[in-house]
Structure formats: C-alpha cells, structure tokens
C-alpha cells in the first residue's frame, strides 16, 4: 500500500519537473517555452513539399526548425485555441488563407516584420500587414473531361441542368478557404447570393474539405466542382508517375479565378530568445527566396516573386479576382449564415 | 473462555427495527441454533456478530473482549475478531483451489510453511478432502464445497463459529450426513458455534440450545423440547411442529 503511495508521489513530482522546463517569463506575463536555438513552425501543405523546405533551410542553418504539420482546419483551430488560452506556442505559422491572420492581427498577436526580399515581391503582394504572403493559388472550376458534354468556360456552365447533382464544393462552415471562394462568387449577379441559390437548386453537394473536390471528381462521384487549382496539379503529377490516366482538368473561368494567398506570420512574443527571433525572421525570409519559391511552385502553387524567368506563372491573359480580406473578415459570419439558409 | 455475550443489540433499516433489543448469552463450547422464518433477522444477526454489518446500537462481547460497543465507540473489524463463518452460498473463490482456500487464513498469520502444512493436512483429513486438494470450486460437488467452506473457517481455530444456513442447498441425504459431521466436529474441537436455520429438524438434532427469532425479537430460548412442551407465545405454538 505504501508502495503505491510512494509511486504516486513520485509521478506527481516528475510531472511538475517535466513541465517546468525552460520557462522564461517576460514583463507582461507572457511565457516562452521553446528551446534556445530552435523554433517551432506550424505549417499546412503537402508533406513532401514541407520536408523539402525543411531540409533546404536546415542544410544552411542546422537543426533549428521543428515543423508541426497540420491540415488547414486543425491549424486554424490550434493557433486560435492557443491564442485564446494566452500564448501562441508556434513561433511561425504558415496557413491556407489570410482570414486567420486578419483575426489575429486585430488582436495584436502578430509581429510586424518586413522580410528581406520584400522588394522582390510583385506589387500586389507587397502588403502593409503583420504577415507575409508566400504563395498564391486560385479557385477554379475542376471537371472530369470524359464526362462533360461540352467545353467548360464559365461558372454558369455549372448551372446546366444536365449536371444536376453532379457538382461538388467544399462546405464553408467547415473550411475557411471555401468560405473565401463563396464570398467572392456571392455577388456574381446583382442580387446577392443568387448564383449560389441556383447552384444549390442544381443539386450542389458540399464536401468536408477543398481537397475532397478533385478527389471526388477523379473517383467518379461528381463531374464538376469549384476548388483551389494546386491539388489538381499534384494529382496529375501523381497519375503520371504511377502510370494511370486521370480525367481531371482545370478551367480558368472567364469571370475570373479567385486568388487566395497563403500567408506566414511570426507570433508576437517579447519573451522569445534573441536567437529564436532571428531564426523566425530568417525562415520568413527564406520562404520568399528564390530557392523556396522554386520548390513551392513545383507543387502547383504560384510564386509571389516578380521574376518571370525562373518561375512558372499562369498565363497572363487569365482573369483573376482578388479578394479584399479585410472586408471578408468582417462579413464572414454573415455570409456563412446566408449560405446555410440556401439549404 | 470463548463465551459470547450480546446485550441490547438493535439494527434499524429506515424506520423499522430488524433486530430489536436483542440480548443473548452463549456459553463456551455450546452449540446454539437460531431458528426462525425468513425475514426474521437471523442472517442479519450473524453478519452483525461477524462484523460485516454494523448494528445501530448494543454491546457484543466475545472471549471477554468487547468487539462492539456503541456507547464506547468500539468496533473491532471482522479480520480481527477471529470468527469463523460459513456462508450460505459457500463463498468459495473461483481462482483458488481447495488447498489454497485452506491455507488462505493461515498465510496472513505468518506461521512457518511446515506448520501451515500440518494444520492443512489435519483439516483435509477431518473433512475427507484429501483427494480434492488440487481441485477448483467448479470441479467440486455441493457437499464438497460446503466442506471446504467449513474447513476454511475451522483452520483459523476461531473463538466462534458461525454457520449461515449452510446445508440448505444440499439434498436430504447429504444434509443428514453433514449435520452429523458438523455436530461431531464441533464436539471434538469444542468451538462455540451458532447455526442459523429455518429447518426445525436441524435445530432439534444439532443444537444444545435454540433461540426462536421472529421479527427481530426472541420468542423463546432454551431446549427445543421445551418449545414443544412449554411454548411461551402463540407464535411458538404455531411455528414449532411436533
């Protein structure tokens, strides 16, 4: 009996010891509990791409990066929960759209850092914000080329009754990127939400994630959908490598493809070690360097750099709709509710 | 002197008294039977004496030691009362064989291995269980289980032996045999014993004295024959059959 008691005490003490490691507290009561010389990054994206970036960055700096790979949704939830609980544990985090960053910026939780190489960015990516845009991708129409009845050129092609119940789109209540897509097509017609109303009437199906859209089209469950283009790019590459045919195709709609950027930010923490602060900044610098940009574009993302020579771009005559993220951040709940009402 | 003295014992459930102002004296080496209909409180009484149930008030003294006294706030736990108990359902442990059942009460006493074996062999012999020594409860017949249960209680050399309707699950022939066996063992070992039963024949055959219990109260106590010849209450008259 006494043995059990002693064991329990021992456990309790060891818990205290383990958790009390490396705590540095600053004047406003913020904690920093990272190791000196190592930064923590929460990143979403294809695992292979992240591994390549990590290897490349560390080949220069050494083992300084701890990447926690997350999906877009979990990354949002986790960062936000950490923010609400008092301190964001990640030093840097690279997500799938600016909405989260707008919300955090409003709370003053992001550090304003202008990266080296800021001037190399295309004009439209040079923002006066406490986050840096790393890549862009576009919401486009994805379709099964073997099953469509005619050429697809416009969002209105999805309203063709011949495609009833064959259209898929991610659920905005489950994915913030999907919400961005919807918000931008919301005012396609004069009457707000009219386009989506018609789409719903044509049997729009909502999937849990954006990545489900090309998957489900490829698997034959649906014929058309709206989702970011980069996944299709990667799926085609895999099909080629594994030697099977894929019927996926992208259509750049004449009304415009919807531009969604992937930002990175440094969490504000004055208790951070000097060395770590340097590393965090170095990582942001790295991501908009040519080397890193080359890696990301090979995965289907579009570069933010103003350098035509080395990097692939989409054809200049494709129309792009840019999102006003500030605006969207304010209206997101409203749009979500309106959208729900359509069902 | 393993004499049992009970004074003014009471046990209440909600508003009702299950044992009402019960007093009794059992002299050492005597075999007492507590007889009564179901619900009369017999088993409860036994549990209280053993210490596995708590009374509301009263005094219990065994071997000149107070094992329960509500006024003085004395309550000796069951493991320290040195009372042997044979349960109605035998309460054998499925994961122990016969030998381990008998050794169980000895192991806590920390006597030498040799001595344990001696005592064990004695009891096995006494109860004719030698060839069942390695058997498990599920391999035993009703009578054998009953004997193991008895052996487990006896090996402790208890001051008091309590038997809670131990024979009610056995068939008539076996019951009679066991009645004789128990009586013989009790006489030979000289252990103060209390048997609880609703079987009048059993009471008459085995005990030195009988207590008739009804609704927690003593209707009559003394020799069984007196119950027949000199019934003290109407209940006694009705309950006891010639």
């Amino acid at each position, binding site marked *: *009996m006494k043995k059990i*008691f002693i064991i329990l005490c021992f456990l309790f003490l060891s818990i205290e010891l383990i*958790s009390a490691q490396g705590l540095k507290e600053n004047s406003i009561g913020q904690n920093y*509990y990272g190791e000196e010389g190592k930064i*923590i990054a929460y990143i979403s994206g*294809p*695992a*292979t791409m992240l591994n390549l970036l990590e290897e490349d960055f560390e080949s220069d700096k050494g083992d300084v990066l701890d*990447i*926690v*790979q997350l999906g877009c*949704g*979990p990354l949002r939830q986790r960062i*936000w*929960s950490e923010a*609400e*609980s*008092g301190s964001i*544990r990640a030093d840097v985090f690279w997500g799938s759209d600016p909405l989260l960053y707008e919300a955090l910026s409003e709370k003053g939780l992001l550090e304003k850092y202008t990266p080296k190489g800021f001037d190399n960015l295309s004009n439209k990516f040079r923002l006066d914000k406490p986050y840096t845009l790393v890549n862009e991708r576009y919401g486009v129409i994805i379709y099964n080329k073997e099953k469509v009845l005619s050429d697809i050129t416009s969002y209105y092609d999805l309203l063709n009754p011949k495609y009833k119940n064959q259209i898929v789109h991610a*659920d905005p*209540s*489950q994915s913030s990127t999907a919400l961005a897509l919807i918000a931008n097509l919301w005012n396609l017609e004069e009457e707000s939400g009219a386009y989506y109303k018609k789409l719903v009437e044509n049997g729009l199906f909502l999937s*849990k*994630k954006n*990545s489900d859209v090309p998957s489900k089209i*490829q*698997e*034959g*469950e*649906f014929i058309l959908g709206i989702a970011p283009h980069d996944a299709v790019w990667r*799926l085609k590459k*895999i*099909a080629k490598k*594994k*030697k*099977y045919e894929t019927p996926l195709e992208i259509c750049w709609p004449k009304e415009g493809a919807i531009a969604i950027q992937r930002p990175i930010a440094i969490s504000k923490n004055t208790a951070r070690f000097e060395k770590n602060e340097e590393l965090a900044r170095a990582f942001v610098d790295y991501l908009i360097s040519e080397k890193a940009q080359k890696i990301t574009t090979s995965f289907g993302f579009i570069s933010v750099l103003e350098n035509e020579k080395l990097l692939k771009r989409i054809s200049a005559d494709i129309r792009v709709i840019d999102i006003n993220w500030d605006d969207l951040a304010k209206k*997101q*709940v409203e749009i979500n509710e309106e959208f729900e009402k359509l069902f | 002197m393993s004499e049992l003295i009970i004074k003014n014992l009471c046990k209440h459930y909600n508003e009702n008294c299950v044992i009402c102002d019960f007093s009794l004296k059992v002299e050492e080496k005597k075999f007492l039977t507590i007889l009564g209909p179901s619900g009369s409180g017999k088993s409860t009484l036994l549990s209280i004496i053993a*210490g596995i149930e*708590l009374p509301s008030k009263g005094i219990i003294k065994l071997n000149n030691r107070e094992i329960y006294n509500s006024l003085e706030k004395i309550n000796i*736990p*069951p*493991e320290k009362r*040195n009372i042997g*108990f044979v*349960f109605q*359902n*035998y*309460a*054998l442990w*499925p*994961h122990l064989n016969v030998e381990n059942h008998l050794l*169980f*009460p000895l192991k*806590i006493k920390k006597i030498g291995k040799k001595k344990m074996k001696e005592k064990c062999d004695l009891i096995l012999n006494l109860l004719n269980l030698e060839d069942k020594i390695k058997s498990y*409860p*599920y391999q*035993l017949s009703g009578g054998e289980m009953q004997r193991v249960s008895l052996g*487990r209680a006896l090996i*402790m050399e208890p001051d008091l032996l309590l038997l809670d309707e131990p024979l009610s699950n056995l068939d008539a022939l076996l019951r009679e045999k066991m009645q004789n066996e128990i009586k013989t063992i009790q006489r030979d070992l000289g252990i103060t014993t209390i048997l609880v039963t609703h079987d009048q024949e059993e009471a008459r055959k085995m005990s030195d004295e009988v207590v008739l219990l009804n609704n927690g109260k003593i209707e009559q106590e003394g020799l069984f024959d007196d119950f027949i010849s000199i019934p003290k209450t109407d209940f006694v008259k009705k309950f006891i059959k010639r």
Partner: protein
Amino acid sequence: MKNLKNYFDTYALRGALLLLSFILILFYIYPTVFLFYKGIVNFDYTISNFIVPFINSLKISLGVFFLTSIIGGLLAWIVVKTDFPFKKLVDNFCIIAFAIPPYIIALSWLQIFKRNGYFERFVKIVFHIDDYTSTPYSLFAAIFVLTLHLFPLMYFSIKNSLRNIDPKLEQAAQLAGADNIYVFRKITLSLIKPSIMSTGIFIFSRSLANFSVAALLCLPARIEVSTTLIYSSLTMLDTSKAAFYSLLLVIFSSSLYFMQIYLINKKKKISLKGSIQNRDISILNLNKYKILVVFLVFLFFTLVSIIPSITMLISSFLKRWGLSLLIDHLTLDNYKEIFHYNSKAILAFKNSFLYGGVAAFFATIIALSCSILSHYLSKGYRIFEAIASWPMAIANTILAVAAIFSFNTYPFKFYGTAWGLIFTYMVLFTPIIMNQIISLLKSQDISLFNAARLSGYNKIKSFYKVVFPFLLPGIKSGILVSLMISLREIPISLMLYSTNQETVGVLLFGMQSQSYGLEMTSALSVVIVLIILLANYLNSKIKRGL
C-alpha cells in the same frame, strides 16, 4: 460521518484519497470548467440554432443504443445460452469489428454505396439498370456505421453479465412453468439490465460526441448534428460558441448518467451471484435451427467485418481509388510509401503505443480508485465516479481544445509536451476502463469479499486477494480498447502533438495532405488492423501459455 474513521485508518489511505481528488480536479474538472467558463461568459447564444442538430444527434445516439443492444444482446445470448458451435469465432469477429476504425467502416460504406461505388457498379452490371445511382448520405448511414463499430462493446458486456447469472434463478422460473421467452423477458432481461444500461450510456455518449462519422455521412446530406455544429463554430474561430454547445451536451449526458445510476441503485439488492461454482448454465439446444442460426450469424459477420475488410484490402492495392480493378491498376506502392513516408511511420506507431500505454495505465489506476470508492463506500462517493466519467460526452476535438486552454499557461504547462497528449488520452480512456471494472464489481457477490475479511485480511488485502483477480480480465480488455483507440485517434493527436510526438492519427491525417485518396488511407488502416489483431493474438497466447 462517524464511519469515515473506520474506513481511513491509515494515513496512506487518506493521502491517496487526497491525491485522487487532486488528480480528478486537475485533469477532469479544471479543463472542463475552464472551457465552460469560456462558453458561459459570452452568453448571448440562442439555443434555437442548436435544437435541430441536437435532435439529430439524439436520434443517432438512440438508434445506435437500440441497435447495439439488440445485436449485441442477440449474439451474446446465442453464444452463452445455446449450443452454437463456433463461440470462439464470434468473439474474434467481434474484436475484428471493433478493431476496424469507425471512419474506415464509414469509408467502406461510402466506397460501396456512393455514386460509382461498388454497389452501383454491381447493380448496373448484374441487373442492367444503367441509370441507377445510390446515395450513401443519411442519418441512418451514421446510425448503421456507428452500430457496426460499437456493438462489440455491448456484446462483451452482455455476455459477461449472462455468464454470471445464477442458473437457479432461471431454473426456478422454468420449473414454475414459464417457457423460454417468458423466462428471458421477465427474469434474464432484468438481471442483465444494469450492464445494458451502463454500457448503453457509454455507447450513447460516445455516439453523441462522435464527429468523424457524422461529418462524413450526414453533413453532405445537409443533416447537421451537434458535433458538426461545434466544429464549424471552431472553424469560424468562435471558441466561445463551441464551448457553449459542448457544455449543453455535457449537461445532458451527465443528467442521463446520474439518472442511470439512480435507477440501477434501486435494484442493487438483486444478487447476480458472481460466485458461480459450476458451469451448469442451462443450454438451449438449437437442433433443427442450428444450421439456420449459424448461417445467419456468419452472414452478419460477413456483412459487418468481412466486406468492409475486403473493400479496404482491395482499395489498398489500387493505384488510385476509383480505378477499375485491372491488374494494371494494382500496386504494392501504397504499402511501400507508408514505411517510406517521412520514415516517421515507425516513430508514429511507437508513439501511439507509448502514449496510449502510459495513459491507459494512469487511467486504470484512476478508474480502479473511483470504482472502489463508488462501490464500497456510501453513496456520496459516487461523485468520484461521475467526475471520472464526465468526459464521455465531450467530442475529442473539444477535449483537445480544453487541454490547450488549461495546460498552456502557468502553473501546469503540459501542452506541447508528450504529457499533454498522455493526460488527454488518460481522460478519454478512464470512462472506458471504469465501465468494465464497475460492472464486474457489481456482479461479484459481496460474500467473497467478506469471506476473505473473516479469514483475517483487512479491507485492502481482501480486495487485492479476492476481488482484484476477478477484475483483471475487465481491466485487460479496457486497456486493449484504449490502445486500439490510441492507434487511430485523430483530433486529439493533431491538436496537441509537437515534433517527434507524431502518432498514427497524425500520419493518417497527413496522408490526405499528399492528395492521396482512399487508397492510402485504406493501406494504413489495413496495417493498423493487422497490428491490433496481432496484439490480440499475442495476448491470448500469453494467457494460455501461463
């Protein structure tokens, strides 16, 4: 209160009780209170949004409860009460059924029933109905899938309970002239009701808290349930709303739990006679029905375990799900990728086992302590049991969010360390193990405990020598279930892990980031199920070997 002194006559016991209280407060109450503070503080939420999803959740939970009771009960009855010939096989199939992760069952269901799925193709080829489309998304689909996943729990619970019934109780009824069905209805059913209720409440709560299956099978049909609503609130970065809705769920589930305790408490006096000495349980001879029963049981398991396993297996060899089954389209690459995948697969399995194992160990100690207090002491001590079961109704994601809230700041900074994962798992596992322990405790006759005491052993020693061995099988199966869960759990892992703390759940989720489809998830799931089966096989070998 006078009696307290008798119970805690050593300082060690008092200290242990204090420590237990501290642990319960720290890990079970503190995070929930923190979370709910968040929910209540901004109270301006109309409950009206919550009502329809909540009713849907209730429908699912009730459906699962009834179906699992019927299926589990029927199977248990066949195995225990008749001369059905393949009893061991039924046990094994049930383990397989539980080992398959619920979202795999959901995915199998989808693979079969979705548009262009196997079923549709089958119908088109065999019945030549060209324009047939099947749709797999409905409330019933969720009920069905969750039932398939959870019925083994009910099966094992009722089976143990049936085994412990004193056959004399039923024989008495039979001798009085009752036929089998009457005996079952009037006697057997009431005797096994406590098990059905306690396992049932557990199944009900877990169905209420389930997210992955509902999201996969209901949401696409625009059927919202409480958990999808909670999840979407989190996506909208509205943690307060998510916390508030979770609070409502927990209050509801806790009320049910208390009701159930109260109802069962009343019938405490019925003894199930766990001290069965012989195995003479009355067996019903199936005779002419034997072949029919065997056929039906095997048909059931074919549908439930074998078909999903096969679809999973086949899909794991496809280059890409959706491709037709030609040789050209088959490959071993998926399996190769798993073990090449960041070379983290092995680390992931190791972590899952380690964290799961440690968490299960702690959970067992807590569950055992709370069960003992609840069973042997006065009613007031049931509060310990209630607190330890609290987390049953909380969705995994919310548990993780609560963990972040409570353990990201002074003085308890477990978040970010492996302990954060371990403690959250511990909280998740405790009700599972406690459920097993309590039903076993209740079914053992108290006379066995008393006999040990009267043989000279104090309460603690008596418990250890005579009751604990009886509890071991339940503890083992509880731990096994917990380990199975740690091998496939996703939300908690994702929300709480850091570098080098990846678990299999993280791996599973990461598969999808690679634009891999169902074929990769299938391959990984096949590996997981094989590991579980291996572990189970080893476990039974060890038992026999000893």
